[in-house]
């Protein structure tokens, strides 16, 4: 039984009087493909933000690779090997695609990155998401799905061991969903642990080895995807009462 | 030892009255910065403009300055709407509010000050009105009318605006646009239009604030700069978007400035506001009185 790459214990987050997350317990194994689902407003993005350090959780703790992350700022967590893509893509608008990837390569990976090595890495990352011909273009020239791919490429540029993909497929056509799905599976085959947050059920079920359900800030299910989707409280959360 | 109690009490009282006035000066920025998230650092320039208009009305036409400011209120309102329109089209819609938006208002501030210097020169200007020379006395407490009248006008303006914000549709729409523009759209109100109205109102308050400013003290073009710090210090200390918090912060600032001025000399008072501002930003950015 290998030790988990991510351990979340008793995590809680409030905004004033509103409880966004309560008592979240979660373990993610190395190389696992975890799906995270839940209705809108259930706290999924808040959880991602707390894991990555963008928000501070008031209670509980997060441990990555056996190391406690409490109080560590976001940029340090990235350097430890945790990366995330944003739900709404947040590219660096004045930089070209290649330069967008430069930033995490220069700052999140160990190497100083001089000249040719960095260029080559940018190229290969862009090739991985089929954006190589647009390397010198600005993010403003991209389509929605291309922005999503850039977002994922940028997350991958930091050479993470854990990638959290936050609704990377929202609003895409079925063919485009398949593209992203294939990309994520390929990444996982290269050894990256992936947490996929999604609403598109067929993608989640096709991808996940394990499924976690969040409703109103609490975890209500955690297990085999086929079992979880048949749980009465999960069905009720999605179909309403 | 003979501790100057009467000096202290009078400093407190003047500070209180001054604080009320500071609230009137700040209410415009409370709307534009606190609710619309527009950093209008040129607001003091509009106030000084109001002061000079009151001065002209007073010296040329013999009008009471406060009356004059009410008469030009619509003009200021329209000016505010026009400026918001330019700001909206040039910056907000382009998503470039930070550097260029700030530079825009800074440029306006500067243009206003230099134009006033060119037109009026750097001499101090003041107004005359019958009630200004009198002072009420209660025991050893002095209440100079030049502080009392502005205080009363400020309170009336504040209460009026607070009621407007809470009771009218437009007022509540303004509060809503700060929190949730999308919901506002769903309620069939146009956020751009609401913001334009709000900004117009914000500049309109400058008209009245300018008139009471020149009642309290003589005015010259560069005075606006002292007020930038006071205004934003009060906004930040009071917590953005909270009128009662703003009033409390304004009074606190007025009292501290008044006491500093009485006991240490007036040359230190500009630093008080700014010192407060830096401290608040460093220690508790959500404001001393604001919601956490």
């Amino acid at each position, binding site marked *: 039984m290998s030790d988990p790459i991510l351990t979340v214990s008793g995590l809680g987050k409030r905004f004033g009087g509103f409880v966004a997350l309560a008592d979240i317990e979660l373990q993610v194994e190395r190389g696992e493909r975890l799906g995270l689902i839940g209705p809108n407003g259930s706290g999924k993005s808040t959880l991602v933000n707390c894991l990555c350090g963008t928000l501070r959780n008031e209670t509980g703790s997060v441990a990555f690779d056996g190391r406690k992350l409490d109080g560590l700022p*976001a940029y340090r967590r990235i350097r430890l090997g945790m990366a995330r893509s944003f739900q709404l893509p*947040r590219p660096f608008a004045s*930089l070209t695609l290649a330069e967008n990837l430069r*930033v995490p390569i220069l700052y999140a990976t160990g190497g100083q990155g001089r000249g040719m090595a960095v260029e080559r890495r940018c190229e290969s990352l862009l090739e991985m998401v089929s954006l190589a011909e647009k390397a010198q273009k600005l993010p403003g020239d991209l389509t929605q799905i291309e922005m999503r791919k850039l977002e994922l490429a940028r997350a991958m540029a930091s050479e993470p061991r854990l990638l959290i993909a936050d609704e990377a497929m929202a609003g895409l056509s079925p063919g485009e969903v398949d593209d992203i799905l294939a990309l994520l599976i390929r990444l996982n085959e290269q050894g990256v642990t992936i947490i996929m947050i999604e609403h598109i059920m067929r993608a989640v079920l096709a991808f996940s080895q394990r499924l976690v359900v969040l409703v109103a800030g609490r975890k209500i299910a955690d297990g085999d995807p086929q079992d979880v989707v048949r749980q009465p409280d999960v069905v009720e959360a999605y179909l309403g009462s | 030892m003979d501790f100057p109690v009467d000096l202290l009490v009078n400093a407190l009282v003047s500070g209180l009255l001054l604080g009320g006035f500071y609230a009137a000066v700040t209410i415009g920025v409370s709307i534009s910065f606190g609710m619309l998230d527009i950093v209008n650092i040129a607001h003091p320039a509009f106030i000084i403009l109001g002061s000079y208009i009151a001065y002209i009305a007073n010296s040329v036409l013999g009008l009471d300055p406060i009356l004059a400011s009410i008469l030009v209120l619509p003009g200021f309102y329209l000016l505010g709407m026009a400026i918001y329109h330019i700001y909206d089209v040039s910056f907000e819609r382009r998503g470039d509010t930070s550097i260029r938006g700030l*530079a825009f208002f800074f*440029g306006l501030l500067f243009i206003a000050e230099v134009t006033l210097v060119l037109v009026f020169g750097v001499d101090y200007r003041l107004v005359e009105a019958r009630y200004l020379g009198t002072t009420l006395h209660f025991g050893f407490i002095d209440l100079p009318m030049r502080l009392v009248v502005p205080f009363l006008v400020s309170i009336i303006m504040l209460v009026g605006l607070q009621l407007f914000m809470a009771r009218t549709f437009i007022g509540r729409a303004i509060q809503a646009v700060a929190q949730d523009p999308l919901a506002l759209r769903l309620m069939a109100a146009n956020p751009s239009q609401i913001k334009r109205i709000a900004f117009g109102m914000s500049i309109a308050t400058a008209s009245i604030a300018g008139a009471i400013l020149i009642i309290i003290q003589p005015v010259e073009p560069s005075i606006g700069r002292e007020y930038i710090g006071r205004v934003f210090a009060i906004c930040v200390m009071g917590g953005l978007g909270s009128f009662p918090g703003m009033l409390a912060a304004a009074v606190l600032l007025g009292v501290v400035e008044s006491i500093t001025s009485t006991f240490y000399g007036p040359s*230190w008072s*500009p*630093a008080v506001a700014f010192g407060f*501002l830096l401290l608040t930003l460093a220690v508790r950015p959500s404001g001393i009185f604001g919601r956490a």
Partner: protein
Amino acid sequence: MRNWTFVSVLIVVAFATFFGTRLVGNSYAFFAGYVVLQYIVLATAWNILGGYTGYVNFGTAAFFALGAYSTVVLHKTVPELPLPLMIAVGGIVSGAVGIGTGYLTLRLRGTFFSIATLAMAVVMQTLVTNWSFVGGARGVYVIRPDESPIFDGDYIEYLFLVMLALSVIAVAVARAIEHSRLGYGFAAIRDDELAAEASGVPTLRLKLIATALSGGFMGMAGAPLPYYVTYLDPSSGFSLTYAVNTIAMPLIGGTSMWLGPVLGAVLLGTLQQAATVTISSALSLLIVGVLLVVFVIAAPKGIIGWFRR
């Protein structure tokens, strides 16, 4: 063009400028040129924090005057100190104050930082006005030496040369930053600070570096001022003119690269020098203000933007 090649070209241009100005034969050329060079440094310094990193500093006057007044203090205590050393001290003091202010305010939103810089300028002015050692409100007289210490000429030519050297250094540093690791970090912060942090950029640390560099250069630009004006008082040292010009020049020239502030400084600086003699200084300031507003509305990419299409 590699950095060292660029610096060499700059040095050649600088020498050419110096000897060209000597040929003019009128010492006024040095006086006017000094001001333009001073603004090249100020505008370039501002742009490192403003254009590159996205944080607007309204308090130029504070850093600039801090440099000037540190020279006053040194002049009164150790007048034999060579000017370049005084400049270095001015730069260090300003840079330190920059880091201090930055540490207090850079963890907040950019707009709060900008307001805080305004606040700091006024606090600093009040402190200096109440400090009698440097003359307080009455100001202080500084005697300008007659002759240049290192070559045969007037002291004003020496001041010109010093400011020329400072400009070369400032522009070289700005350009070196542009495509360096530091520069990409700055740009990421400017474009999307949250995403930058999520990409591993230590945003607070980089912002402090930018503030230190920017403030430091502004202080160095101000350090020779007492010898230039020979009479310094707080209202002229902390004049709003410096703040407006320093912001207007990069915004009009273009904020994306080193050339913008230089263009803006040369154009606006020369314009103002000409206008001050012909119309009036107040009117020329008004023109700067109007140009700033017009450019910010109509030409957001500045003059450089016209040519980049």
